[in-house]
């Protein structure tokens, strides 16, 4: 069975999503058990795939062929959809798998039964499947299909609280932008298909020369994916979406943004890697700077804890774009500092998933106990919820990049790399970090310090377990970053930075 691990990681959550409403009719416990089983199985597959790839290189899996490694039809061109999993995809899959393992037990306790738990769990399973599908696929149209799976599932989750008028509004806004992003992506793939008669990523990558149609398709890819990753000019859906979705599910939304970012890297480095000008790199870099600054300033004025954390999450997207953008600018010469910045940007994806995930879980726990997230009404929760307060403090410091924590480990790499390209970039990034520290100090003070407040007793232990898992992750990544950077991040960064030839060879042979 282990030959099929990449597809099982995607197909089992899909099947799980289809079957969950049926099993809920038998008994709720059966459904909960099924959901947990599916998530654990998928996580195990993701882990196996990652371990295999880190030891033995790119894993190609051709769907429906007589042999999973038979990539080319007689005549030397690919005809079937294939999964092409390299170290970067595996890294992305690991992030998604880990956060799913944390988020699902939390969600099982967090969402009340009478509010439509079955439907919410079904959508979450499908969202997980869509995220893994995006991370592993090697085919443009398939990428579009899974982009739409994640869009629709995410918007369903965002609109979950239909009794609050803000939730459907946020969901509608997000849906318009997500659909538009999907359609731009489809249009770009259609242009490439019209020009080269193929949809396989590696095959197209070998064909692209940089003609006018190629450049137009690149512009459409960029426009579509930037909408989906919530970068600066079109970031405005993200705070609404993150703020309105149930906290436990926001984790999956964060991973959804990151996997779209991964799609952007895949398009830029692998698909267009042979014919890319530095201008695109500068575009990504400047959008990253704009994102982090705008989001940090917007976070300063928020009074809703959920929206505040959401703006913090958006600003972190800026750091990833800055780090990898520096790599894109220097892709032609491939100097050392470009690779350092790349490593920082990609390491930051993992760190962001952990810290922002922990912050959202804390927000969820606060809302579960107090029923509100308004900073003007909150205060003094630190006495009643010491664990939550500690986790929030830890995650805030990590997000702002304070030394012994994981956020610092990746940001220092980004600063180092971008400083060598231009000191202004690093200066702006440091400034945004300081701003974020102020923001989160205010949030911590507003929510957890002050005179003792009444809290609802009996915070479920699963909440603390999920939060503890993320907190331990933050500490471990912060204290021994070297091991993870060398073993996980460096191969992933290398897969983008140097790996285009290997990626093409794995599919096209030779």
């Amino acid at each position: 069975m282990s030959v099929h691990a990449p597809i099982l990681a995607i197909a089992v959550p899909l099947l799980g999503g289809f079957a969950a409403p049926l099993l809920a009719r038998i008994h709720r416990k059966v459904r909960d058990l099924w959901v947990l089983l599916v998530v654990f199985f998928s996580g195990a597959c993701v882990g196996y795939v990652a371990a295999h790839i880190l030891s033995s290189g790119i894993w190609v899996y051709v769907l429906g062929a007589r042999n999973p490694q038979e990539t080319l039809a007689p005549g030397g061109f690919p005809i079937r959809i294939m999964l092409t999993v390299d170290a970067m995809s595996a890294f992305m899959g690991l992030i998604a798998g880990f956060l799913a393992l944390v988020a699902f037990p939390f969600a099982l306790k967090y969402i009340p039964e009478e509010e439509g738990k079955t439907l919410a769990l079904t959508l979450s399973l499908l969202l997980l499947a869509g995220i893994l599908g995006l991370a592993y696929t090697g085919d443009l149209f398939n990428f579009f299909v899974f982009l739409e799976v994640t869009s629709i599932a995410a918007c369903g989750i965002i609109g979950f609280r239909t009794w609050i008028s803000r939730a459907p509004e946020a969901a509608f806004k997000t849906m318009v932008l997500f659909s538009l992003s999907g359609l731009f992506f489809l249009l770009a793939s259609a242009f490439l298909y019209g020009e080269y008669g193929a949809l396989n990523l590696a095959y197209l990558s070998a064909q692209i020369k940089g003609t006018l149609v190629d450049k137009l398709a690149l512009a459409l890819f960029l426009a579509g994916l930037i909408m989906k990753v919530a970068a600066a000019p079109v970031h405005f859906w993200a705070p609404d979406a993150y703020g309105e979705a149930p906290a436990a599910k926001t984790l999956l939304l964060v991973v959804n943004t990151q996997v779209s970012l991964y799609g952007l890297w895949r398009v830029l480095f692998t698909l267009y890697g042979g014919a890319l000008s530095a201008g695109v790199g500068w575009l990504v870099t400047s959008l990253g700077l704009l994102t982090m600054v705008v989001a940090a300033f917007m976070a300063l004025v928020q009074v809703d804890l959920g929206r505040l954390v959401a703006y913090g999450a958006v600003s972190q997207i800026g750091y990833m774009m800055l780090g990898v953008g520096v790599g894109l600018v220097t892709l032609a010469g491939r100097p050392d500092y470009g690779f350092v910045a790349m490593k920082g940007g990609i390491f930051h994806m993992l760190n962001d998933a952990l810290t922002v995930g922990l912050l959202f879980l804390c927000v969820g726990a606060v809302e579960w106990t107090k029923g509100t997230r308004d900073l003007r009404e909150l205060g003094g929760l630190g006495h009643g919820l010491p664990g939550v307060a500690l986790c929030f403090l830890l995650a805030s410091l990590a997000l702002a990049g304070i030394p012994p924590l994981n956020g610092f480990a990746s940001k220092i790499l980004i600063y180092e790399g971008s400083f060598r390209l231009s000191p202004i970039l690093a200066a702006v990034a440091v400034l945004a970090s300081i701003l974020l520290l102020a923001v989160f100090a205010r949030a911590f003070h507003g929510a957890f310090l002050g005179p003792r407040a009444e809290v609802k007793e009996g915070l479920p232990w699963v909440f603390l377990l999920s939060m503890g898992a993320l907190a331990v992750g933050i500490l471990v990544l912060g204290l021994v970053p070297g091991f993870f950077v060398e073993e996980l991040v460096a191969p992933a960064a290398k897969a983008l930075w140097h790996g285009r030839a290997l990626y093409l060879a794995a599919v096209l042979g030779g």
Partner: protein
Amino acid sequence: MNRWLATGAFCIAAAFLILGAVALRPFGQPARTEMDDYFNRYSQPEVAANNAVTAIVFDYRGYDTLGEATVLFTAVTGVALILRRVRK
């Protein structure tokens, strides 16, 4: 101000799209067809289906169709979630 910005962006986008349509290979004369020729030639011997489109939809690109079925399922679940009755 915002309005003019949006209009300007729209004009640029529309011009780009039409430029792309003109720059593409002529209508009715695909430049590269080896993948499609393969499907037309081998859908009968390989899949035993007379209809090459169905052979692609369910066999060569069956995984896409699974995704598509998932999209429909997700949307129906989403609609059921949005339009459900919640006592609050």
